[in-house]
């Protein structure tokens, strides 16, 4: 199987063959001898040319999140060779950013109004959840198109709060 992916801001081309734990992976023209054993506790042991890693692989968006001892790396498949399920990769670009509630909770303060210019990382609303007040910030610089909530309102996970153009 041949795949193109982005990982840690890089584009990579990878070819993989094999089964039952033993695999040949060709990565950027380099052939790797890979031994991967999954275990029922959710982790997998990975041996690559003698180096040992304890990994955990989860589906994430259009690819996989691979947990490694130093942290988690997201490997996203790029068109056209993206395999299997998983929706299209979310695009940044020209579309509006929709800020949604990451968990159920209550809106404590609305910090912006529609039409207002905002910086990336600027606070949009303050939400109380899990006994704490959490500031939800703008994912990008732009202008607030719509504010969909008011102070005191209870919201469910995924509720649309603010749209930033």
């Amino acid at each position, binding site marked *: 199987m041949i795949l193109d*992916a982005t990982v840690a801001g890089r584009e990579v081309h990878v070819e993989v063959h094999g089964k039952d734990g033993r695999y040949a992976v060709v990565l950027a023209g380099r052939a790797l001898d890979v031994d991967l054993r999954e275990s029922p506790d959710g*982790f997998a042991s990975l041996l690559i040319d003698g180096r040992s890693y304890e990994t*955990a692989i*989860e589906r994430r968006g259009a690819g*996989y999140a691979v947990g490694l001892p130093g942290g988690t790396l997201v490997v996203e498949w790029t068109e056209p060779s993206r395999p299997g399920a998983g929706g299209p990769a979310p695009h940044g670009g020209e579309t509006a950013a929709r800020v949604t509630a990451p*968990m*159920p909770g209550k809106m404590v303060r609305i910090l912006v109004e529609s039409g207002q210019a905002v910086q990336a990382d600027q606070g949009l609303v303050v939400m109380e959840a899990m006994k704490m007040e959490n500031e939800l910030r703008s994912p990008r610089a732009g202008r607030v198109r719509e504010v969909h909530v008011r102070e005191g309102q209870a919201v469910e996970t995924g509720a649309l709060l603010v749209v930033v153009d």
Partner: protein
Amino acid sequence: MTARATETSKGGASFMTRRAFKKILIANRGEIAVRVIRACREMGIPSVAIYSEADRSALHVRMADEARFVGPAPSRDSYLRIDRVLDAAHASGAEAIHPGYGLLAENAAFARACEESGVTFIGPRSETIALMGEKTSARRVAAEAGVPVVPGTLEASVDAAALRREAERLGFPVMLKAAAGGGGKGLRLVASAADWGAATLAARGEAQGAFGDDRLYVEKALARPRHVEIQVLADSHGNAVHLFERECSIQRRHQKVVEESPSPFLTPELRGRMGALALALVRKTGYCNAGTLEFLVDAEGRPHFLEMNTRLQVEHPVTEMVTGEDLVKLQIQIAGGARLPFGQDDLEQRGHAIECRIYAEDPERGFLPSPGRIVALRLPEGPGVRNDSGIYPGYEVPVHYDPLLSKLVVHGRNREDALQRLRRAVAEYRVLGVATTLPFFARVLRDPAFLSGDYDTSFVEALSVTTPPPVDHVIEAAVAAAAIRALHDRAASRSTAEASAQAAPPWWRAGLGEAHGGRR
């Protein structure tokens, strides 16, 4: 209680062998409920857990000897319902209640209700909780005991003009605080007179919402203070000791995330002086059971009393690791009327301990809570490592409560040794399914200011260390793992397709294949 104590001394039973109570109810949840259950079990005392609708599958329910349902998921309908908690205690025959920390732990009305219904509250008397819970009355009694307090008002007020005059007398920046305060609620740093109006409004609103009391007071904001606290223990016979300090300057949103003991900042003289100040306040208030005095230590090394927590602290394991004492068992024995089994001279700090609080929060997104299912879990083990955890693989972290999952505590010969051990343990620690504060700790443990011990409460804001980019062989491993998983997933979806094709009636496949000339 006095009767119990007399009985103990007559019987000559040793401190830890006599059963203080026949049964104990734990009015809490999560990791602290598990911690108290462990103490009960070591003492041979059956434990009763309480749980809400959201916590039926929680670890503390699984581990306790008995469990009682107390109501719907929101705390105010279950864990904070004094009547239901007491009903559970009576129905189960519990003789005492351990409140843990948070929830009802510093609720004087709850302690009083326990006293009145004949159940022992494992903590100080209700009057003491009320006295110290009101932050300005605590400041007044500290001042009377000769303990220096942070300069500011000693009376709480709703009079905005009076508060403003006091702020100007102290000089900006000042801290605006809720008289009923706690947990960073109703707390505002006011940098200048221009910010005053907005800050008072916000602090009042938060205080009213959190405590139903919008009275505020003003304190001088100290420049780059350290947050150092002293653990105390006192019995009902007038004996009191301190168990040294915990350094708690690593905070986010005015809540601690890393604590250690000894403080890398305290000299033996300052440690001794702060211990003596703490005991002066303990004697002045007739304090009984475990408690903690929080101090801010300014850049000149002067301690200023901040407040007293009349309960077990989240970070108590740090003290347990360096003193070798079990604070929860001691709390239970003291509540049962026993005398402290040691004096001040019997206590010493051995080695160094550091705690990291593992919260279900995403440090990459401003510590935003991250509830969800723990998909996989590996706790660090080995020499000098302690986990006080309330989770297990497959556990669903509820959205209704504090997102503290677990506490990782290490002990080493000295600070250097403890840091090495902690770095190893954090790397070994794996939680999948929810974001946690672990990556933040990995960064803290590389920060030069933290490593040198030269840090203060502004540390988290000032933390400049970023996660280094992954090295090539790690990227290689990630891509290889993902590619192999993709190969598996494709094979699995193919075999599912084939299986469903085979599950179709043979005549259908045969007929279709033949009729359409084997179009497949």
